[in-house]
Structures are given as structure tokens and as C-alpha cells.
């Protein structure tokens, strides 16, 4: 009876490991450029990125963290700002409608959303349009308590635990860039998720 229970425990542990393990997530980048519509697709498993990035010790990137100089931060406490955003209700935080640029920064359904539309080219020349949707958990992981560094590995880890997201799109007259995360190893075109 005791042996039977031991075997049962091992089987249930293995089953938990097999079915409870989160599915591998992939970071996809797709760039479509030029009039000839050349397409570059890059697919990277997040687990691979988590292993490779800490091995890079080059310039300001060390052990998966990017050091930020004080001068770059201009005494802005990014951590405090993020904490404030995290604890605030959903809504538009910044809306700028300028002659050359429209900017919108908002928080919605646990995501930080940034939309920038460049209008400097005028109506006849379509300007650049940038949309960024990042889970707040990723943003929080990206900026740890030490405000002088950006923790890329923690952000990737948070990304792999968050849902499938279309994260960044950049569109202008010549190029289209899409960055997204999902559980597909191939680079099937993402649908708009926000």
C-alpha cells in the first residue's frame, strides 16, 4: 500500500510537471520594408533569451542588466512614477495633440499603452505611427528598485508569464515593424490584441 502511494505521488508529480509547466513563449519581430516589400522575420524562444542575455557582458549590459547613468535619467525617479501608475486606475495619463505629433500614454487592463503619431510630414506624406502595448508586470520588472539599471532578464521572465501580446507596431511610408509574443514558434501574423 505504501509503495502504491509512493508510485502515485511520483506519477502525480510528473503529471504536474508535464501539464502544469507553462508553454514556451516566443518573441517575434517582423519587419516589412521598402517598395519591394522585403520581409524579415525573427523568432526567438523567451527561454533562450533568458539564458543568452545574462551571458552578455558588453558595454552597459552586464548580467542581464543595463546600467543607466545618472545623467541619462536627469534625476527622474522612474520607479516612483511606475509605482504611481501601477496603483492608479485605468485611464489616459498623457494626451498631447501637437502640430507635429500626437502622443497618448494610457493604462488599460493591466497594460501600459503608448501611441505616438508623427505628423511632421504633412497630409501628403504619411508620418510615422508607433503603438506600444506592454503588460505592467513587464514594465515593473524592467525597472527594479535600483533606479540606475534596467533588468532585461526579469522583464523577459515577466513577459513569458504574461499573456500573448502584440507589443510594438511601427508604421511609416516605407517600413512596417511588428513585435509580439505568443506560443507559436512560427511567425504567423499577429492579430490586433488591444
Amino acid at each position, binding site marked *: 500500500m505504501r509503495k502504491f502511494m509512493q508510485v502515485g505521488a511520483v506519477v502525480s508529480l510528473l503529471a504536474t510537471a508535464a501539464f502544469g509547466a507553462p508553454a514556451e513563449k516566443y518573441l517575434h519581430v517582423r519587419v516589412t520594408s521598402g517598395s519591394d516589400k522585403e*520581409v524579415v*522575420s525573427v523568432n526567438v524562444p523567451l*527561454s533562450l533569451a533568458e*539564458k*543568452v542575455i545574462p551571458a552578455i557582458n558588453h558595454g552597459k549590459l552586464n548580467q542581464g542588466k543595463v546600467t543607466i547613468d545618472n545623467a541619462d535619467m536627469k534625476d527622474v525617479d522612474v520607479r516612483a512614477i511606475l509605482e504611481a501608475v501601477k496603483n492608479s486606475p485605468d485611464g489616459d495619463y498623457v494626451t498631447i495633440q501637437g502640430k507635429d505629433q500626437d502622443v497618448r500614454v494610457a493604462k488599460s487592463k493591466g497594460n501600459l499603452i503608448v501611441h505616438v503619431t508623427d505628423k511632421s510630414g504633412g497630409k501628403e506624406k504619411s508620418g510615422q505611427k508607433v503603438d506600444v502595448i506592454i503588460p505592467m508586470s513587464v514594465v515593473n520588472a524592467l525597472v527594479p528598485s535600483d533606479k540606475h539599471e534596467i533588468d532585461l532578464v526579469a522583464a523577459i521572465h515577466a513577459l513569458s508569464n504574461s499573456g500573448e501580446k502584440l507589443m510594438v507596431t511601427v508604421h511609416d511610408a516605407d517600413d512596417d515593424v511588428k513585435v509580439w509574443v505568443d506560443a507559436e*514558434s512560427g511567425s504567423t501574423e499577429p492579430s490586433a490584441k488591444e
Partner: protein
Amino acid sequence: MLLVGKILLGAVGSVVAMGAVISSEGFVNVRVHETKPDGVHVHVIAPVLLMNVGLHFVPRRNLKDAAEQVRPWLPVIDAAVKGLKDSDDLQLVEVSGPDQHVKVATQGGYMVVDVTDPEDEVHVALPLSEIDRAVHEIAAAGPTL
């Protein structure tokens, strides 16, 4: 007659064993196909072991620059190769242009590169473990730190 049989069996056994050793580390597969009418067609399938042996015969001075450039990146290459080995088969990069198509993928423990343009078709497949070993071999060719 029995003696001849034993000798033959020994010889065949040795050849099979040698073949097994040579092929134990996989094969490098290179195929180049020029699409023009009188184009060159090359298809080489060589045991990785022979590539390793060949690398030993490259004069060290010829690998010095490559060694210096690759050495700082050894931990990154190690981590990337290990990560790729642990991952499922994957299409890492694909470039599709009007007249060129490039694919870099991992397939069954191999890194596979396919390039197709109007003039050539190139296919290279190399065992992932061999990439790591070859890079370490090249790094070791540089001056001792």
C-alpha cells in the same frame, strides 16, 4: 576457408567500427546549386570528425584575428547553442525579398541555413554541438591570455 572468413569478418567489423566512430558526431551537409544552364552543382556530406581534424591543420596565425574577435563572445555562444539544443525545432530567421529567400533554422539538432536567389541555391546543415566546438577551437588558436 575458416581463417579467410575470420579475416574478412575482422576487416568488415573494423570498417563498420571506423564508420561508426567517424559518423558518431554527425555530418556536415553543404549543397550549392547554380541555377544557370552551365552552373556548378556541389553536394558534400562530410563527417564532422573530419572537419575537426581539418581545423587542427589550419595554421594558427590564420585564426589569430578570428580568435581574438570570438573569445569575448564565447559565454554568449555557449549559452545560445545550449539554449538552441534545449529548444524545439525552430525557424530563427527568415528573409523574403522579391528575388532572395534566406532561412536560418534549427532542425533535429542541426543549424540549417538555406539561401535561394536567382543565381544560386545554397543549403548548409551543421550539428549545433559542432558549432560550439569549432568556435572554441578557433578561440583557442589565439595568443594565450
